[in-house]
């Protein structure tokens, strides 16, 4: 039986077709094969959340998936958040609130927050805390991260109000 499989998938809007080892995790595939090293690997067993990406719009651990399982999937990684020089509102909020120091956990927090705010656009602080409970940060502390996510949610609300009030 061949230990390699051809997979087709979309990452941040770009289509790829690759021959991959059956044993390769999706996280290793993104980092080593596609050179998308923004997805970080901490614990490599699903606990730390650093490798969180979106698979068909849902937040998942890329270290708990094999690359071959993503055949046909639409993935989003942290590299896809900013549009050119324009940071994603969550990235701006993280910068404004000093919600990162070393930045190792940040991609996972951002992708978790993107999925969370899509489903819960007006979260309470408690809901934010629960949403990020699956992501570990070891230096910044969680307070600024919670504040940044709440700020990003608020900014998105203000912007949509502005948009709806313009004739």
């Amino acid at each position, binding site marked *: *039986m061949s230990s390699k499989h051809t997979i087709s998938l979309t990452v941040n809007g770009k289509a790829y077709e690759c021959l991959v080892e*059956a044993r390769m*995790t999706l996280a290793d595939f993104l980092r080593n094969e596609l050179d998308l090293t923004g997805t970080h690997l901490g614990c*490599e*067993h*699903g606990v730390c*959340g650093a490798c*969180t990406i979106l*698979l068909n719009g*849902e*937040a*998942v*651990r890329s*270290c*708990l*998936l*094999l690359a*071959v*399982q993503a055949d046909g999937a639409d993935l989003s990684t942290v590299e896809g958040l900013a549009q050119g020089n324009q940071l994603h509102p969550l990235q701006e909020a993280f910068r404004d609130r000093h919600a990162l120091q070393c930045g190792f956990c940040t991609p996972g927090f951002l992708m*978790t927050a993107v*999925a*969370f705010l899509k489903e819960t656009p007006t979260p309470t602080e408690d809901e934010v*805390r*629960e*949403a990020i*409970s*699956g992501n570990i940060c070891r230096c910044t502390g969680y307070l600024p991260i919670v504040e940044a996510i709440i700020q990003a949610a608020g900014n998105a609300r203000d912007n949509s109000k502005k948009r709806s009030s313009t004739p």
Partner: protein
Amino acid sequence: MPLMSFRLARPAVIIDINRISGLDSISAGTNGGLTIGALTRQRAVERSKTVQDRNPLLAAAMPLIGHFQIRNRGTFGGSLVHADPAAELPAVGIALGMEFVLRSAQGDRVVPAEDFFLGYMATAVEPSELLTEIRIPSWKPGTGWAIDEVSRRKGDFAMVGVTVLVQLDGDACRDSCIVIFGVGGKPVRMHKAEGMLKGKKLGRQTLTDIGETVANDLEPDSDIHASAQYRKEVGGVLTRRALESALARAKESGRK
């Protein structure tokens, strides 16, 4: 995957069953019960209106499983056949009297939850069998329920967890089910404590006594997460609290 990451498992071949179609649906039986396909994502069960309408205990248990990123990929059947002793679903399966449909080339057989879990990550599933479907009996109106657990962080594995069901006859307990998880190789049903409840009015003293009985009867292991003594004590306290909530819910639904 974690087992492979830790090199605890080195399988020669892995078969990904995720793409088998027809095993990921939630259907409402005509008898008021539920049938859930083994490959249904935990998140789909959590979001299901049918589950919320038909089974409040299952609906409350789903968000306790890991974190939402885990539930997005984790399957309902996967958690049951994995049979981690600290997992919520095996305990809820025993409390609700779930039935597991195991399919092989020879056909289907149905195993009740009480016979399904054999020990630490071990189940009645034979190598030639696949769990295809989980049948959940109809919810008995008026049943009080609760599920609670203690973990270091929200979403971590429970050091101790408990789920209870209580049915009342007036003020007295007609029937009950108490299942503790995270305290041994598999979820433990506390038959002695259930016997003490039967026919009793559930006053504060009775509940305290039952909590103490549970704490005495538990025989948990010590590990890096918690000592056996801690687990016994927390198991007793959680049981008392869960019974209090279940009792309040049973009384409330009796008033409706």
